[in-house]
């Protein structure tokens, strides 16, 4: 039975619950916007990385390079889209 619960994945799961608990701090404690956003950015991206490496087996085959390049490219375009939009729609640099 225990072979069905590999240590790596159990630890990954516990760590993801811990990250969720840390992120909840921004709700339960009074803190500045900057401090709250820093906590959320760190916990969200660590959580995403954890899923990618522990659960999605991203680095397992010889396609590792292609898979990571593709993910980084997707994330890069995502960040450019989001921050580009913020830059011209919210922060006012038209």
């Amino acid at each position, binding site marked *: 039975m225990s*072979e*069905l*619960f*590999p240590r790596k*994945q159990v630890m*990954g*799961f516990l760590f*993801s*619950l811990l990250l*969720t608990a840390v*992120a*909840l701090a*921004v*709700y339960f404690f009074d*803190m500045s*916007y900057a401090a*709250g*956003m820093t906590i*959320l*950015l760190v*916990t*969200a991206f660590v*959580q*995403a990385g954890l*899923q*990618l490496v*522990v*659960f*999605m*087996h*991203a680095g*397992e*085959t*010889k*396609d590792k390079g*292609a*898979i990571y390049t*593709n*993910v980084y*490219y*997707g*994330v890069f*375009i*995502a*960040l450019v*889209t*989001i921050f*580009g*939009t*913020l830059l011209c*729609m*919210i922060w006012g640099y038209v």
Partner: protein
Amino acid sequence: MKIDHSLPLEYSTEENRLKVLGFWIFLGAEIMLFATLFASYFTLVNRTGNGPAGADIFEITPVLMETIVLLTSSFTIGLGVHAMRLRNKKAMLSFFAVTLLLGAGFLAVEISEFVHYVHIGAGLQTSAFTSILLTTLGTHGAHVTLGIFWGLFIMLQVKQRGLTPETANKSFIFSLYWHFLDVVWIFIFSFIYLKGMM
């Protein structure tokens, strides 16, 4: 078809390996899809008009339930793939079943949340904020709904045909999709709900 027995079943042919790579490329496109939704959300989050703001309508209990249920389902499908690699079909199908049940539980909470929003006057047409909120949440929820049916059909195939290179490959790709939905939810949880309630 050349089968390499040194690799896990889902990668055992070149076609299978390339299908996994192809699915990662699809997930790259999905990242960008959700990025456009988040970009619109951050632009419109303060355009509440006469409607409520996020802080007025978000409640921590259902959001936390959804998060824990989805995180757990991401864990159980990971265990399902692990069991598949041990060629334990029964354990694999059980883990997949638990995953899909948790997915259904997530959807139940989300649907009741949507009903609640509409009930308190935060429908799709109330303000720019509520419309992008419900569009972003709804796009994720639609993905979960699709995933539940997809997973169900995969389970049926594994049950009927057993663990072959094809069914193992399909199951593994489905697990990638499911983990990805969990990743998207983490960003919704952090940057829509928690940021809104901060």
